[in-house]
């Protein structure tokens, strides 16, 4: 998709335009889908297109004031929800990277030691298990042994120990579930192996210079590529974890407002969907920039 164009700003503009168009088109499709949701609070004579029209106004004109519940502003709800969701997402990504990065590099540098075989087998056996199963198994374990239920309510007023405990279980469910760890680990291991055999890296080593900065720089791009491809699975995983551990994040808000009977809180749903789409936009935008910037052939 990246055509060779002359100057740098032209490229950045092109990438920004591409990702922004993806953002708005998927928002449009979601409005179309939302209008299909049956809702008794809407009088019968409102046609499908009118519903789509006012969802589009809500979504594109950023026009919202009070949530249906009336107690809180939509912006407050979304702020609180995104605070929760992004703590979960970024903490689990952080832990995934801190596990996958050293393991990938270590495994790539040594030729198939038994540590490498052991690690690959365990990760590939653990990862196909979905987040739902991990969450319920962890909940079972924590209740049977810790005799405690890690819910978000304790997070606010608990001391540091309960906070970490309540935060750790959902994050562990996300990290282990849905093959996220496996994908990162495989990608990093293959990339490091490829870089290690590069002739210029051996030359750098021959000159006595350290090589870790070159390896990390070469890993930056594949990490972002896997990240942007895994982000949609991560979002649906987040919704499940928030449902089970009662974290009132964005995913949970979308799910509960769609699920509860009676008037549905469309501004809230569209607001949270926009925030999630923005993260997808951000990740793919950074990925495109990195593909362009790090790629030596395109260097001008």
């Amino acid at each position, binding site marked *: 998709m990246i055509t060779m164009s002359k100057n740098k700003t032209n490229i950045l503009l092109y990438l920004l335009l591409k990702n922004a*168009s993806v953002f708005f088109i998927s928002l449009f*499709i979601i409005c179309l889908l939302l209008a299909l949701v049956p809702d008794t609070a809407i009088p019968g004579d409102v046609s499908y297109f009118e519903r789509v029209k006012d969802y589009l106004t809500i979504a594109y004109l950023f026009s919202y004031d009070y949530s249906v519940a009336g107690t809180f502003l939509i912006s407050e709800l979304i702020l609180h929800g995104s605070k929760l969701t992004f703590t979960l997402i970024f903490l689990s990504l952080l832990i995934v990277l801190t596990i996958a990065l050293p393991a990938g590099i270590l495994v790539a540098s040594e030729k198939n030691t038994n540590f490498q075989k052991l690690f690959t087998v365990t990760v590939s056996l653990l990862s*196909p298990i979905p987040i739902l199963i991990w969450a319920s198994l962890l909940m079972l374990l924590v209740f*049977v042994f810790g005799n405690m239920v890690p819910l978000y309510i304790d997070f606010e007023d608990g001391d540091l120990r309960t906070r970490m405990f309540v935060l750790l279980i959902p994050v562990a469910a996300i990290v282990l579930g849905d093959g996220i760890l496996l994908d990162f680990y495989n990608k990093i291991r293959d990339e490091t192996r490829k870089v290690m055999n590069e002739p210029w890296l051996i030359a750098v080593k021959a000159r006595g210079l350290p090589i870790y900065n070159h390896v990390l720089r070469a890993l930056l791009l594949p990490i972002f590529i896997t990240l942007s491809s895994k982000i949609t699975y991560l979002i649906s995983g987040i919704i499940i974890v928030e449902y089970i551990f009662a974290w009132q994040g964005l995913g949970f808000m*979308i799910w509960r407002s769609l699920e509860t009977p009676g008037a549905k809180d469309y501004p809230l749903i569209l607001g949270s969907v926009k925030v999630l789409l923005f993260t*997808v936009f951000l990740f793919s935008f950074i990925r495109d920039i990195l593909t362009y910037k790090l790629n030596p052939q395109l260097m001008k």
Partner: protein
Amino acid sequence: MIIHLNFRFVLGCILLLILIGMNVVAFFFSSDIIKNGTPARPPSLYLFQKALYHQPIEEEAVEDLFSFSVPDEAEPHAEDLIFNRNPKRTATVGTEYRYVPTSQYLRNRASFWVEEGPRGMKYEDGAFIWTPDSTQTGIFDISLAAQMEDSETIRGIRFKLFSDEIPFYFGTDERGNSVLGLMIAGAKWSILPGLIAVLIAVFGGLFLGAYAGYNKNFLSNFIDGTTLVLESIPALLLFFLAAVIFSFNIYIVMVAVGLVLLPVNINIIRSTVKHFVDCQFVESSKEIGFTDNQILFRDIIWYNCKPIIISQIANCFAFAIMVEVTLSYLQFGIQVPEVSWGNILLQGKSDIHKGEFWLVFFPCLMIIMSLLSFYLTGSGLSRLLDPRKN
């Protein structure tokens, strides 16, 4: 490398055969797999039952022989406890139920008797013995009593004994259906719906991806655009809408699953095709005179993308199972009269604090097994067929 590969492929095939076997059984004898017995009966393996009540039944001091009131004073201290073992809670018609209450030393110095129990249960040379006949099935409240020679306090324990015709190895749910039967019946949702998702995702991905990768015209840009858009829509929202609008019809949901997986497959196929298009052998075969389609499908797809397609099929099946289980867990997938692993998992989750773990343990086991079977066969097969590896 060869040994490692076989291990993964062989294990995957074994699990897949078990899953297909369960599917066939569920399809042919669908009526009488689920046997009926006493409700909420624990699995009859003693090992499971030990894990079930991780602390043994509390022992109470008995004032008079007939009433078993719970004493207020503190726990009886350990040394004068007599029944210090966890009794077996299940019995089967025809096989002898045996419970040895305590160590040999205590047994000589204490007298045991059955306070309240089914007909034919007696204490004989160190153990409580009972062989239920065909009429004695159901839940019996058992209370056993014991008295040390030197002290006059009588100690007793009470527990429920489940007796059935068949030894339910996996236990039963609250309606008395055998969990083993439920697992087999639930297996029919693992392969059949997945087929639809695979058809859409893998073959759609193959053709669209190949086309988008091979030539550069408006259509290929359009395909790239739609994959980007489809990729960014949160998947669960799509499943929710498909489930709600078509009143929980699992096959329509699988069409939505196919749509969600389409972009991933398109991207993979397109990148491999684009990678090979630049190679020399494509130009050379063009000069020889092969048509575009022939080059694309025979050379590029058939030789190089075969392992990728197989791993895509496996991942697609695994993802379909995951979606079906998650939706049934959130009560949006398969509804009650039908049997599905997600429903049983949800039902089991509410009994965890009572110690009845088997309604969560076995569905999780089955889900993990079916996912692993697809995943391992997929990656094993793709390694086997990979031209580059060996």
